[in-house]
């Protein structure tokens, strides 16, 4: 295989892995927005929080898998608490207030992370079992990235199963479509909200924990991931999981190839694309709800 082909494939895998991470983050974000009307500016911050938790648990137990298991759950709990005590209280003040409070939460999480772990980049080592390369069909692939892709697919498959094959999933989908209607049917919407919010944050937490070794764990982690996730949600459509999936993968590849071949132009293209979609199709390419 020629070196350029290897390069292309490597970039494709990078892009796919990053795209999957993006989708993990964006799926929670888009579900939360679709259902609760809240655009959670702090969403990626929770992902970052989870990355820091993962680092900490890894430090304390030396076991990556344990860390990977615990960190997102803790982040998810933080998310649930945030929803219960902050977001619910501010709901009566309107969408603007909700948006602004997530800005405050983002700021606070950033500072907390700096207080406990400092402002330096922290290294999370890829566990032995996942490091290195694997050979297949004459090409080499980094195992960890394949792991990311694989894990994401498993989790998302599981989520899809719940969403489309269970009663709970049906309720959630209905609530994303029309929360008031679901409430009128006598279903405990606050509970559903809390659940979906928690799961959304947990998904972001998984992405954060898993991304730690890749992006290194540092306070600015949330910025890049968060912005990209927003682009995904906005372009893919608020509330649309399918849209988020397609755009996330597209963006992942655009990032990977873009950074390689057109480093200056890539972010410009991305934002320009998002701006145009917003201006002409404010609900996103596949979105249904405003």
């Amino acid at each position, binding site marked *: 295989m020629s070196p350029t082909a290897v390069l292309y494939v490597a970039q494709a895998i990078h892009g796919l892995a990053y795209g999957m991470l993006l989708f993990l983050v964006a799926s929670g974000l888009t579900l939360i927005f679709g259902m609760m009307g809240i655009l959670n500016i702090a969403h990626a911050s929770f992902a970052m929080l989870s990355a820091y938790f993962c680092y900490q648990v890894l430090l304390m137990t030396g076991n990556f898998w344990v860390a990977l298991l615990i960190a997102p759950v803790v982040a998810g709990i933080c998310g649930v608490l945030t929803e219960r005590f902050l977001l619910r209280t501010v709901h009566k003040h309107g969408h603007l207030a909700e948006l602004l*409070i997530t800005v405050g939460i983002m700021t606070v999480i950033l500072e907390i992370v700096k207080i406990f772990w400092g402002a330096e980049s922290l290294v999370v080592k890829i566990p032995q079992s996942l490091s290195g390369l694997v050979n297949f069909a004459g090409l080499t692939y980094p195992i960890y990235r394949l792991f990311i892709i694989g894990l994401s697919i498993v989790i998302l498959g599981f989520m899809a199963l719940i969403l489309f094959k269970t009663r709970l999933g049906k309720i959630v989908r209905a609530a994303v479509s029309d929360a008031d209607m679901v409430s009128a049917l006598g279903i405990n919407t606050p509970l559903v909200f809390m659940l979906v919010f928690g799961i959304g944050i947990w998904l972001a937490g998984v992405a954060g924990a898993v991304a730690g070794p890749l992006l290194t764990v540092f306070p600015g982690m949330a910025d890049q991931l968060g912005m990209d996730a927003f682009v995904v949600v906005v372009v893919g459509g608020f509330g649309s999981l399918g849209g988020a999936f397609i755009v996330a993968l597209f963006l992942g590849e655009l990032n990977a190839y873009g950074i390689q071949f057109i480093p200056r132009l890539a972010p410009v293209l991305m934002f320009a694309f998002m701006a145009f979609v917003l201006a002409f199709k404010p609900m996103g390419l596949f979105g249904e709800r405003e």
Partner: protein
Amino acid sequence: MRNKLYKWILWAVVIIILAVFPRVLGIYYTNFFVGFVIFSLYAVTLNLLLGYMGVLSFGHAMFFGTGAYTTAIALTHIQGFPLLPAVLVGGLAGGLLALILSPLLVRVSGTAFAMLTLAFGQLIFVLALKYREVTGGEDGIGGYPIPPLNIPGVLSVDMTDQINFYYFAVAVIAVCLLILWFYTKTPFGSLVVGIRDNAMRMDYLGFNLPQTKAINLTVCGAFAGIAGAVHALLMKLVSTVGVLDIHNSFAPIMMAYVGGVGSFFGPIIGSGVLHLLEDLVIRFTARIGLVNGAIFILVVLYVPMGLVGLFSAAKAKWFHKEKVS
């Protein structure tokens, strides 16, 4: 009549305080005050969009930053670029940016507007980072000459003297604030507020919404650019951090909210409160970000009408009590 007298006295007192301020409080607070007025103007322009037109500009730093960078670049590359034009060119740049973006910005409102401005804000931030030849990237642009205030044949005031600069900056910004205050009182100002309350009805009353919004956006961009320009002159250094980054987009939002988005002076009060708070907190801890964030959350939760709103409500209650007793 008495009310008017009180108002004139109040303003006279304010002017006197402003005049003697640097002599009394020293260099540190002089510069501190200039920072406060810069952000007051900046926050007011944000509020002309938020409180007055009902849209949240989430990337407002792009106007501030464009102004700051334009001024810095002009002073760096053009020999003998004079002072006032340096400020005005920053304003021009900010206004131009807003004008260029307005065809897209006027099409949306609400969350979409916030997202769109966020996107553009980030875009410009990234552009500034990447195009080092123009913007100096992360290092930014510094060391440009601060021109003196020259009125040919009359006087030449050295602006590297911080006290002189204080008077200049406060005067410029005071004039800007006055202009903007008057702007809100014009018929056009009432159109903007009409759009906030009921854009659809404004359309049906015969007002050209896109044009009206575009003009307001341009005005806000221009004056935010002026704030950035004065900032560039104050700091003598312009880089992406603190000028174009997202935290500089959040700062005016916090200030407007804390002070109260429902009034013209709210953002100014918010700017004052947050600046004082930062100055105070910094003596104890470096974690002003945390304090700011926590305060912001508390304000959004419990005092969404801001300090001005709180004060008005208290005043109304007090007067009601007076009347009753």
